[in-house]
């Protein structure tokens, strides 16, 4: 059985194992045991409400309860940029026009901004490759939106996700080659690693502060602004169906998009409903495929759990929860659950 729950100390070894396999695309999950330990500690404090809500950095894991192994991880930062500084470029339009000369030019221009400061970030998503099936990915990613729906007062009203930007087969980012490299005089992978492990003051020190006119970048770099890495296309598509939009913010290193949504516009949040649990011994036999799956959360903050149930379990006033699942979800009959269909309903 696959269950989402808060990370805890005992997950350290599993997390290290996962981090080894992320590659350098996932800055927030660096392959560095000390940092991972710190992340676990911070998450435990967050779930225990031992930090101020805006500073909380939550990490959830996906556990295969049959093997007791953690096979996936995902995170939420309550509000970014409160301790360090959160940077994005924002693509803006500069128009230069002269009626006298008959010239009217639009020049995309990148402004270094901290505009996402204080927003909630969903981040650190990683799923072990042999578990990338059976809706595990959707369960892992979307479970976070149930957490946002259950505890909106702990988060900003705007949430965003940074998507890994385009890089070629050799791992070269044309955006970095054309911009960041000229100011950082180091390889992308190193700069990317440093943002994960060092503070961000070096960005203030090294990054160009004046606006950048996009035509000064190479054509390859101009092309990939706001584009995601091929591997990230499905994640972007998924978030967009949930209501996320690209609004001009890109990563300062690789030009990848930050896509954003107001929490109450996210489909999972908007369509989710509360219903009482009905613990059952013999659940109705499931027919139909994945498309009728529902996410169900137990609405507990520190003991948060999410799992999938078949659509047939959703009754008029209750949700059927098999005994074994009830134990994993830590719920009894009569507890109020939050549920939502895993995928957008066809209309």
């Amino acid at each position: 059985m696959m269950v989402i729950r808060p990370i805890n100390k005992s997950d350290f070894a599993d997390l290290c194992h996962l981090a080894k396999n992320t590659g350098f695309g996932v800055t927030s999950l660096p392959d560095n045991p000390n940092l991972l330990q710190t992340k676990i500690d911070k998450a435990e404090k967050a779930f225990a409400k031992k930090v101020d809500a805006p500073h909380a950095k939550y990490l959830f894991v996906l556990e295969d309860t049959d093997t007791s192994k953690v096979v996936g991880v995902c995170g939420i930062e309550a509000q970014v940029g409160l301790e360090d500084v959160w940077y994005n470029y924002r693509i803006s339009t500069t128009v230069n026009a002269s009626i006298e000369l008959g010239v009217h030019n639009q020049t995309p221009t990148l402004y270094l901004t901290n505009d996402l400061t204080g927003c909630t970030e969903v981040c650190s998503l990683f799923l072990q490759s042999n578990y990338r099936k059976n809706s595990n990915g959707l369960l892992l990613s979307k479970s976070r939106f149930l957490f946002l729906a259950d505890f909106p007062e702990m988060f900003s009203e705007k949430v965003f996700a940074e998507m890994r930007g385009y890089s070629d087969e050799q791992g070269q980012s044309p955006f970095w080659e054309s911009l960041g490299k000229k100011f950082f005089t180091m390889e992308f992978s190193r700069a990317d690693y440093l943002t994960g492990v060092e503070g961000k003051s070096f960005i203030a020190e090294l990054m160009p502060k004046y606006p950048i006119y996009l035509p000064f970048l190479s054509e390859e770099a101009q092309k990939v602004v706001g584009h995601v890495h091929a591997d990230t296309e499905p994640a972007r598509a998924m978030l967009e169906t949930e209501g996320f939009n690209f609004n001009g913010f890109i990563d300062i290193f690789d030009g990848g998009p930050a896509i954003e949504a107001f929490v109450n516009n996210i489909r999972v949040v908007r369509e989710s409903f509360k219903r009482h649990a009905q613990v059952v011994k013999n659940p109705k036999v499931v027919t139909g495929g994945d498309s009728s799956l529902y996410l169900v959360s137990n609405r507990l903050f520190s003991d948060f759990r999410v799992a999938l149930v078949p659509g047939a379990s959703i009754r008029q006033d209750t949700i059927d929860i098999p005994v074994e699942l009830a134990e994993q979800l830590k719920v009894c009959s009569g507890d109020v659950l939050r549920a939502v269909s895993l995928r957008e309903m066809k209309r």
Partner: protein
Amino acid sequence: MLTVRPSTFSDLVSIEKLANHNSAKISTLPQQRDKLSAKIDASTRSFAGDESMGGIEQFLFILENTETGEVLGTAGIDRSAGNGQPFYNYRRDELIHSSRQLQVNNHIPILYMTHELTGKTLFCSLTIAPEYRGTEFFGLLSRARLLFIGLFKERFDEDIIIEIQGVSDETGDCPFWDSLGRHFFDMDFATADHYSGVKSKTFIAELMPSHPIYVPLLSDAAQAAIGKPHPLAEQNCQLLHREGFRVGNHIDIFDGGPTLGAHVNDLNTVKSMHTKTVKVTESNGGGVKYLICNGDFSDFKCVVGHLTDGIGDVIRINHTLAKVLDVSEKERVTFAPL
């Protein structure tokens, strides 16, 4: 005899011919008749001391063969760079992007738009017939302006600047422009340069990018062209450098060419010029070559001639020279070593 004197309307056709000669591309002299005519008009009024010029006098000198009446070159002085409008330059500066933590210390050159040279006295519109390039008359034409300014300092700014044409190739392609201005003007360098000569500068405010430019983001060719003179302008650069002009931090916003500058009192011609009383003699007199001019504002004349300078206040010049300079016995001439 080759003489430098104020331009007049009767020079219009000759100047136009000069301006449209191929080699004039490196000059700031306008090529259109109406613009040239306006320039001569402004010059005529400026030499006449017309008060309505109000501090934006524009002087245009010509080099004439007084025997044939042929016009062989032009040289201008704008009292006030920009002529009452903003005078645009990029100023080269550098920011150090430094991180102790990462042991990185990068010097990032930056170009800032600036108008700080507006109102300084500008040398401009230098053109000479190709066969006189490389002769002493090139020096005569260019330096006559320094004698003029040295004589009438109170009418000019104490800082003199001069823009040197930047790098471009035979087809007129300009690497600095292609990497910078072109993105915003959407036209080639020649067209933009043309507009710059004939239009008011409003279009620069409208079209030039207003944010500072990071040099490392320009093309390699553009970076290499920053502050570099066009090969055809090198002789003039040499002369100006000898004269005391120095390369500063300002470059042309279109082609990246350097702007030279000097305090008027630091210029060799100004430092070395003397004014003495004329005694007209028959003999050619020998001596060495000097730049010699009369002290007349409206009828300024300047030539190359032989002199023997001594300790007294009197200097001998022969009849021919006196006639060309339009000076008589007991009047005064000013001279500086050629």
